[in-house]
């Protein structure tokens, strides 16, 4: 099952309706509801049931919830907006965007990996099996895997490792080999390593503690992958420095790439324009919404 961009069915449908309906008069009066096919929501907020919420290392926790079929159909690179419980003395008001860490359509489950850093994640930390959590998603445009790619390279650091995680299963299903270059401050803080290895990926760990995580060393590793014909595309998340290295190599060798971007969000569905970033598109700098136009973007258009 290869990940694909979420359909924009609603918008396509509205353009078709446009052709079949007469233009409204200036002072339109709302009349009867039009008699087209019954409308169905494709983004819903729902109560999911917590199955597990356990620490995986000193920093990260792994949250698993039972959810609807629609939510469990989430694709790698997509995200959910979680309405976090309120920890004592704190009131997280907005939903918190959280990358998909795993999705299981058969078990109807989705998984998240999070680090406790603020009021929202302190609220998530309180969840126990059996608790309800209001989740909204899947949201945004995820990663795309071309069936023609036989080998891809995934480069991640920090929380970016969680975002890249669902690629491992999707790549295997696509018949694509993966080399994962994972960066962290210390070896014990690396996540997703076993998850990738279980799917048959080669994982190369680089860390600050071992002085192997600098851009020069990562570039050396990447050049070897390219030289050995093991890089049809770059996938990255979590480090601007490593993204720049890949952009340089992608340009040099004419390779495609995708990057999952992060930004503070409010609505998560393209309404508020809080999460805009600059992108370099056809020689122009344009603003795009990370939540709606992304969070996965063309590697060459992304700016740090």
């Amino acid at each position, binding site marked *: 099952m290869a990940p694909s961009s979420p359909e924009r069915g609603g918008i396509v449908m509205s353009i078709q309706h446009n052709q079949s309906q007469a233009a409204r008069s*200036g002072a339109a009066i709302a009349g009867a509801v039009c008699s087209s096919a019954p409308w169905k929501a494709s983004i819903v907020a729902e109560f999911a049931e917590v199955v597990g919420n356990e620490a995986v290392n000193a920093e990260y926790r792994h949250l698993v919830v039972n959810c609807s079929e629609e939510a469990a159909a989430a694709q790698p690179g997509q995200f959910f907006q979680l309405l976090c419980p309120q920890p004592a003395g704190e009131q997280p008001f907005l939903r918190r965007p959280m990358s998909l860490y795993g999705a299981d359509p058969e078990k109807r489950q989705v998984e998240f990996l999070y680090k406790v850093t603020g009021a929202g994640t302190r609220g998530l930390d309180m969840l126990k099996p059996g608790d309800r959590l209001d989740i909204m998603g899947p949201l945004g445009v995820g990663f795309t895997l071309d069936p023609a790619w036989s080998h891809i390279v995934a480069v991640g650091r920090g929380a970016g490792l969680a975002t890249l995680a669902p690629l491992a299963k999707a790549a295997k299903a696509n018949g694509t080999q993966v080399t994962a270059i994972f960066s962290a401050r210390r070896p014990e803080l690396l996540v997703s390593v076993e998850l990738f290895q279980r799917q048959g990926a080669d994982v190369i760990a680089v860390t600050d503690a071992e002085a192997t995580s600098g851009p020069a060393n990562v570039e050396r590793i990447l050049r070897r992958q390219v030289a050995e014909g093991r890089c049809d595309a770059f996938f990255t998340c979590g480090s601007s420095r490593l993204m720049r290295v890949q952009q340089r190599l992608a340009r040099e060798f004419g390779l495609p790439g995708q990057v999952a971007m992060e930004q503070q969000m409010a609505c998560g569905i393209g309404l508020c324009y809080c999460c805009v970033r600059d992108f370099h598109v056809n020689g122009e700098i344009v603003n795009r919404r990370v939540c709606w136009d992304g969070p996965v973007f063309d590697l060459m258009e992304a700016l740090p």
Partner: protein
Amino acid sequence: MSATGKVDLSVRIGGLTLRNPVMPASGTFAEGLEKVMDFNRLGAFVTKTITRELRAGNPLPRVVERPGGLINAIGIPSKGVPYFIETTMPHYAAYDTPLVVSISAPTAEGFASLAAELSIPGIAAIEANISCPNIEEDGKAFAMRAESTEKVTRELRKATALPLWVKLTPNTGDVPEVARAAEAAGADAVVVANTILSMAIDLKSFKPCLGNIMGGLSGPAIKPIVLRQVFQCAKAVKIPVIGCGGISTAEDAIEYMLAGASAVQVGTATFLQPAAMTTIIDGLEAFCLRREIPCVADLIHGVVIEEADEPDLAWLDPVS
């Protein structure tokens, strides 16, 4: 008429009849909500504010949360009029829901020319955003004063025959006076209100939390304040008042209508529960059914203010 056909949910706003009193607040609504709700259920569409000039919007961060609400300083990013007409409008033409376009300009003349240009088939009303706290220095806006409100409204009135809604600011001491000025200059309705000018400071860096330093507070935190302003304005003017401020539930909407609102706008609530507007519409109907209120419009100005009884002092009269 409602989904069950038992409650008349329609309301009249000037020359426009809405199928129900619930619509989005400008800036919190876009085509993406098509995936969340049936657009044919809404009372109206209200677009993000558009300007003639292309605007990138404010520096990031553009939002910070506080208990019961959020402060935003988006800064009205706008792709201009041709983009709106060619790209945004067609999305809404598919629906049988009136399209209200929110506009802003730096001058009264600019407002008027924009209103004239947008007085075209497919647009049901103009909402003049003369109250955005984020695009003028220190939150100054036309709606801060009655005189400037009257001037810009008069220019707008001359420029368009469409229903004209004027969106007022809560950041002034005498909102009813400003509402009266809008009415005198020909507004068909006033929207009360916009966000409340606010600020937040980060205690790690000592820097303001927003790139724009100040922003507008919205959400449940502001509801009692704006409800009071709607109550005052509805007494001060004869034109309809559209309530906007912290409405998250049907109960909030009912409270606003009792205070004098003819319709309500829902904004920040959509960020938390994307289907908030349709939930509110269902709740309005359920409330009217339960209380045997045949028309939701019967709620407007329904607040019961009991006069204090005059004490009966007759027994003190020594003669009787």
